């Protein structure tokens, strides 16, 4: 077993997250899939930090976590306000700007 296994696992997790973003209609679940993609990238960063023997990768992963937290806060607030006006959390119903 080598470090490659971790990288392949991260790639598969990233793909599952991407497919989830494409397939799911509920905006909150779409957000969760984005979180999964960010987590997979974090796993890659930490594996490479271990491989190169520097802590820089871990610091980038830390920044990814912080940005993810900020993104979740804003995203969920937007979903809340969309839900207030449209009474739905589905991404199909937020189509006012379409026409």
């Amino acid at each position, binding site marked *: 077993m080598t*470090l490659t296994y971790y990288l392949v*696992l991260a790639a598969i997790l990233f*793909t599952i997250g991407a497919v989830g973003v494409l397939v799911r209609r*509920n905006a909150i679940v779409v957000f969760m899939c984005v*979180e999964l993609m960010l987590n997979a990238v974090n*796993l890659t960063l*930490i594996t490479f930090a271990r491989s190169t*023997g520097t802590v820089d990768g871990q*610091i980038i992963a830390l920044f990814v976590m912080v940005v993810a937290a900020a993104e979740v806060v804003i995203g969920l607030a937007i979903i809340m306000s969309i839900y207030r006006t449209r009474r739905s959390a589905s991404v199909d119903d937020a189509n006012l700007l379409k026409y």
Partner: protein
Amino acid sequence: MNGVVIGTGEAVAFWVLGPIALAGALGMVFSRNAVHSALWLITTMVSLGVFYVIQSAPFLGAAQIIVYTGAIMILFLFVLMLVGRDSSDSVVETLRGQRVAAAVLGVGFAGLVGAGIARATEGLVGTGLGADGGNDNITAIAELLYTRYLLAFELTGGLLIVAAVGALIYTHVERDPGSRRTQKELSRARFLTDRPQTLPGPGVYARATSVAAPALLPDGGTTPDSFATGIEPQEVDQMPRPTGRGQLGSPDAALGTLDPAPLEGTDGGHRP
């Protein structure tokens, strides 16, 4: 440095937690209920946190479990409960063939990226973090964070403040003073509806403590008004229902708590 040595313990942990993480990710994508999706995602995130600890990043492993599963996922669940748990996905495919296309894309993407990474990093022998990945991990991170990445760290603080204020602004609802309805107006409005009284509570009396147990009507049926929103009403085993005077025995007989084989000659009051 003598390179990364992956021991048996790490291999075992990988082969146990890796499938769990994968199953969590797949369960999140495929479960129809959004709350189940969140719980599956928590499974994946905890496994990834353990991976971080194994991969000589103990600080990030703790941060993963505290920040992601402890704060972010709770925020997700909080919003799910606010928005309405029953706002689950529709099964209708709005774009024709989208799911098949997404599945093909997923398999192709995973194959390409996975195979590419596997080929590129084949036989990768890393240097390993040494003490920086062990007890000195926090010190090593702090040294870098407050020197080389200081500007980014400061900007992160600004980002968090902007995010917090933005969330407040997005979710704030401005009400004109005096526009709030009084208790009297609310009461009048309620008496104009078909149902001025409260809904019947769930049947949590005799044999169930779950809010999913529906309330019973005198004829033994369940009343749909008592169903909790978003929970499937459960079938609760009911008390034995005597149909006539002759069947009304002692309380023991009604509850079914008699001895299975009472001794002959005794009337049940004396137990061996």
